[in-house]
């Protein structure tokens, strides 16, 4: 990557780290929420569905501002976390939080679709053979939704890589700390002579986005073949 300057490289590395953790930490929640929405009927289900989708439809800057109000140093959750020694405001962890929340709806949608495609009768069959619900989930449902989970995770990763509005509002644009790839592109475009650096990062963005897409197609297809048993 010799053709990238140190600042650009730093932004790329930070973006990868932020997106990786954002995806990894939200994945279990994403699977759980998708399962709940697909399989359980409970009061407040529509409300949960709406909340999950909110970041998708709100202007990102609004989501970022709400994060700042909640997780900022003065925010209720921010204060609580600060007492535990965790500060997210203006840190890379905050960027990961913003990216995770923005990517969450996409992840849940992909996983939920794959759960709805699993015949509940197979889960019943597992139960009659002596498997508890958790075990049925681990041995029947999860392997069968694996393609959806992988697709959801890769989609979320790509979304996290591109997240800009909520991140810059919540954790600003501090080089080395919160300056992710899109923020860096934006910053380079604000200074005279920064176009070359910005263009290089744009190329990197395109490569990563396309790579993620191809990878998700490939892995998803492999997993689907395995699951369908052909």
């Amino acid at each position, binding site marked *: 990557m010799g053709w990238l300057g140190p600042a650009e490289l730093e932004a790329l590395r930070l973006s990868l780290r932020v997106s990786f953790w954002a995806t990894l930490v939200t994945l279990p929640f994403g699977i759980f929420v998708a399962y709940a929405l697909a399989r359980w009927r409970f009061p407040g289900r529509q409300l949960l569905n709406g909340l999950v989708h909110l970041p998708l439809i709100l202007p990102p800057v609004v989501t970022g501002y709400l994060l700042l109000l909640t997780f900022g140093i003065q925010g209720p959750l921010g204060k609580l976390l600060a007492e535990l020694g965790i500060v997210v405001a203006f840190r890379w962890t905050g960027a990961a939080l913003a990216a995770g929340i923005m990517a969450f709806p996409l992840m849940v949608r992909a996983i939920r679709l794959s759960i709805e495609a699993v015949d509940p009768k197979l889960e*019943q069959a597992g*139960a009659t053979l*002596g498997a508890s619900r958790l075990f049925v989930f681990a041995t029947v449902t999860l392997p069968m939704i694996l393609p959806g989970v992988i697709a959801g995770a890769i989609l979320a990763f790509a979304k996290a890589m591109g997240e800009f509005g909520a991140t810059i509002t919540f954790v600003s644009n501090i080089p080395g700390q919160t300056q992710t790839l899109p923020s860096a592109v934006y910053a380079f475009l604000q200074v005279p002579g920064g176009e070359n650096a910005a263009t290089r990062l744009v190329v990197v963005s395109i490569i990563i986005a396309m790579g993620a897409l191809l990878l998700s197609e490939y892995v998803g297809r492999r997993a689907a073949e395995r*699951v369908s048993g052909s």
Partner: protein
Amino acid sequence: MSLSVRLQHELPDMQLDLSFDAPPGVTVLFGRSGSGKTTVVNAVAGLLRPAAGRVAVDGWELFDTEQGLWLPPHRRRLGYIFQEGRLFPHLTVRQNLSYGRWFAPKGARRENPDKVIEMLGIGHMLNRRPAGLSGGEKQRVAIGRALLASPRLILADEPLAALDDARKAEILPYFERLRDEVSVPILYVTHAAAEVARLATSVVALQDGKVVRHGPASDVLADPSVAPAGVRAVGAVLQVKVCEHHADGLTELDAGGARLFLPRIPHQIGEDLRIRIPAQEVILSNKRPEGLSALNMLEGVVDSIRAGEGPGAIVSVKTPAGPILARVTRRSVAALGLEPGCVCFAVIKTVALAPQDVGGRLNAS
């Protein structure tokens, strides 16, 4: 091993209210679709929670609403064979077979996998996945999977309904072996009289969520007033022994001293069988018929005549082979002057006795 079932449940289009105690062996729930059969099986399995009732296998309670007892499905130790197989598509045949085995308590693992695999003839497909199996093969694997969970009770919900006739003929013998070689009681749901005749130790006939008849297959199938699957299902069930295989492709059977001929069947000479004779394949005559192509003729005495709502009547004839049922028109009954006590001859066309109506040996009934 016995099964005791009492259930009350409100369904959208009917009220389920029934109870029965089943002896060991195969208990067939017999009735047309919508009679509540599957609801009963699902309640026994714990997949459906009935409004009230109690189910116990050999005194061990699966649920009892009065005591507030409800075992979840995975703690009931059942083997459920579904109509559509429901094999796990992402697992190989071998993994499917061992799925239930993982959960069976170590001490309860009665069935030997190698023996079950051999009994079902599935040894050559262990490393394949369900998508590559035929319907009949899938159902054999499903039987094995249920059996290897070492269940206390096997449930089978129309396990042959999704198969064509050839596949049905392929699978039925495995259920007979299950009945004769494995000591687990079986609750078997069907609407096919042929399956009842071959498998049932006892039959529970259901109609609109109620038990309308409970007894041995020969009694229930012979009773046109219940006729759960319609009058076409009425027929006599006879106990027979294989006498001889003739060179012209016929098999000769001994039925209480009388001789019956039917197209060659694969059973050994000397073997005890049960055979179903559908009432609509029987012709009656008040004189000994002559110049007739039919080979099977049984002399007997009219026992009863039951006229239905339509133009038909069911005539029960006592013969040395056992009671034979004939479905004839009321007009014929009048024309022949048939009434209880009359001597008459029952004529059965040889080719009307289909191989799927012939079952393997049966200990009970």
